């Protein structure tokens, strides 16, 4: 076993249920975000930028788009002879009707122990795929070793105006040790939110998985963090940079719009820790003679001939002459026809809005057009 070597496990389906229509045909990890990314890119890039070379992605259902996206892992330099990216899908059993319907991370890992045992890493980072941040996990390891913790859980000080779904919060003592863990809280205001990222030794994780299996415990947060709060040293690591957690359409919209702030972009996309994603080989964006653009993020491959204001525009989008798009998210290859008028719209991949159409939502209820829809 190599000392200080870390492996990563990503749970790509975690919290799928909270995302509503966004996960209709994809995992939480493959939700498009920020003009050219999928949520899982942030977790994968954090791990890769922290020197992690063995990464397993646990999938449960709807994972075709995810496989499409990550491929062999080359975009993250994870297409390796030794280690690299490993997809850990469920496998059908003879007796069960369907494959494994795991609900928690512990349960999911019970079915993937062989992988966990096969990598010669000393530590494991467990992570969901629904958090958008740029965290150097080497700092987490440093603190983990300095405090002599058994488990280090990453949290951030967050403020919620409305209750989020599937939110776990922690209480942290002055020395950094966790004194309380609450699952599924519906609080508003300021609290310390667990980012579903935890670091622990591989040995301890295997022990916890086996123990959890024997006692019918599915969830890592409940079965390990809550149940062992006293007898294990569980410390918190505070992430202070940009953090966004997607749990539904409203937070999805807000998390995208947050990128229109330069400071937020600087925190999420520092030059020394780039965020990798699948390469599409698109032409740079092209702006027409009468285009008018303000406060917007625009990816390669777009042809913008109309007007954009406060928009996140993904790769390959076309906005026709005279069209006015405000406060909207246009995903990959969406087409907005001439003189169309959109406000507070989230158009999923391949959506077509015909010429002259008017669509309008509101901040808290953006108008969502599902993948491939034609209006």
């Amino acid at each position, binding site marked *: 076993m190599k000392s200080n070597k870390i492996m990563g496990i990503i749970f790509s389906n975690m919290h799928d249920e909270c995302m509503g229509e966004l996960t209709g045909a994809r995992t939480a990890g493959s939700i498009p975000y*920020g003009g050219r990314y999928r949520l899982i890119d942030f977790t994968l890039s954090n791990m890769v930028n922290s020197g992690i070379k063995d990464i397993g992605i646990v999938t449960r259902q709807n994972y075709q788009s995810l496989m499409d996206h990550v491929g062999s892992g080359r975009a993250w330099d994870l297409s390796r002879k030794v280690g690299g990216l490993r997809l850990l899908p469920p496998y059908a059993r003879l007796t069960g009707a369907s494959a494994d319907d795991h609900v928690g991370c512990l349960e999911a890992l019970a079915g993937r122990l062989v992988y966990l045992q096969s990598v010669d890493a000393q530590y494991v980072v467990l992570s969901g795929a629904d958090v958008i941040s740029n965290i150097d996990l080497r700092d987490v390891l440093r603190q983990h070793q300095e405090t002599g913790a058994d488990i280090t859980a990453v949290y951030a000080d967050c403020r919620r105006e409305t209750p989020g779904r599937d939110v776990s919060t922690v209480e942290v003592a002055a020395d950094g040790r966790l004194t309380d863990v609450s699952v599924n809280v519906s609080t508003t205001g300021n609290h310390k939110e667990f980012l579903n990222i935890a670091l622990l030794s591989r040995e301890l994780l295997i022990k916890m998985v086996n123990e959890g299996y024997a006692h019918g415990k599915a969830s890592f947060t409940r079965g390990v963090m809550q149940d062992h709060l006293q007898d294990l040293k569980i410390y918190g690591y505070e992430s202070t940079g940009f953090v966004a957690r997607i749990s539904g359409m409203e937070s999805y919209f807000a998390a995208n719009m947050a990128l229109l702030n330069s400071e937020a972009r600087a925190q999420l996309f520092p030059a020394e820790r780039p965020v990798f994603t699948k390469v599409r080989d698109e032409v*740079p964006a*092209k*702006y027409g*003679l009468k285009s008018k653009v303000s406060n*917007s993020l625009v990816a390669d491959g777009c042809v913008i001939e109309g007007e954009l204001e406060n928009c996140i525009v993904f790769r390959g989008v076309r906005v026709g002459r005279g069209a006015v798009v405000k406060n909207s998210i246009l995903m990959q290859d969406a087409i907005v026809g001439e003189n169309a008028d959109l406000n507070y719209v989230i158009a999923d991949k391949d959506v077509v809005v015909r010429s002259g159409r008017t669509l309008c939502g509101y901040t808290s209820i953006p108008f969502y057009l599902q993948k491939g829809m034609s209006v």
Partner: protein
Amino acid sequence: MTQKKEWIAMLLAGGQGSRLYTLTRKIAKPAVPFGGKYRIIDFPLSNCTNSGIDTVGVLTQYQPLQLNEYIGNGQPWDLDVMNGGAFVLPPYQRSSGSDWYTGTANAIWQNSGFIDRYDPEYVVILSGDHIYKMDYSKMLEYHKEKGSVATIAVLNVSMEEASRFGIMNCNPDMSVYEFEEKPAKPKSTLASMGIYIFDWKVLRRYLEEDDADRTSSKDFGKNIIPTMLDAGEPMFAYPFEGYWKDVGTIDSLWEANMDLLNPTVPLDLYDPSWKIYSRNPVMPPHYIADGAVVENSMIAEGGDIWGQVDFSVVFSGVTVERGAVVRDSIIMPGAVIRAGARVEYSIVAENAEIGAGATVGCRPEDAQDKDAWGVAVIGEGVHIAPGVAVPAKALVDQDIKGE
């Protein structure tokens, strides 16, 4: 053991491109950035892979570091194949001595060992300084149909331009009877595009003979082609229709970039069946701020635009600060245009910085001396201090400090 290939390509990428002056001071011409995210060599490399050629030897000599790194294992062009792929071929030492590449034909001859390993029927010779999309497989079909041993792609140019090119004089069946390099009085307007397909066995013989001739300048246009014609080898011109541009000068490089903004120019980069591949920068989408004005321009990812950009090609990671104006210009990767600066009819190379309130270049109508007007060039990494005025047509390769 390598498997036999029907055809392979050899890409001549060793030229200095001295007429690009400061732009090629540290990099070879084929590595010069083009079109917002590409480098010139992306065009022939992408043409190869799109035409079904999976083995490309890239002959480098002048300032090869950046080019070698850029090509790498050829993966961005899908050329990281098991048998074949992209190979960077610099001159090397042999037991009987060593030599720089002394001419285009000599460069190929020095690598005949590389070509022989694949035992190809045909070799495509390309150069790394042209912007165009071309299906070489159609040219190969033509080569076979005509029973040609040497086929040269030609472009129909105007009579005025013809004396700047190598001109192919052809019979009605397109067989070539004469080749004239930059003729003062051209007899035809079919200009060689520097794209050749040869039967390798035949070419190999001519290269060997030419190598032994100490008076030869070891050049395809000057030596190999005329010698083959004199010997009566069947040689045909392959007429190409479409966009093709030699970007060997500051003016032509500037024009070719501007052509991308012109919807009537027939160079479609958006065709999904003929993508131009490149090594993609890892950067977020570009941001256009409130108050920015962006019109008729191309902007790549990673940019941060707060000022005005008009009729310009802006590469990845470029910053244009508030109040800055960029017009009719090419801003290469990582360059910074500080607040209130004005850049017109200019090429600003990689990582250069134009200080606040500085001006670079000017519009032809604003020039005091119309004859002295031209595109201004700021070299790689050059810093122009705030408030400095760089005149039109200036070629700046050293920092300019303020008073």
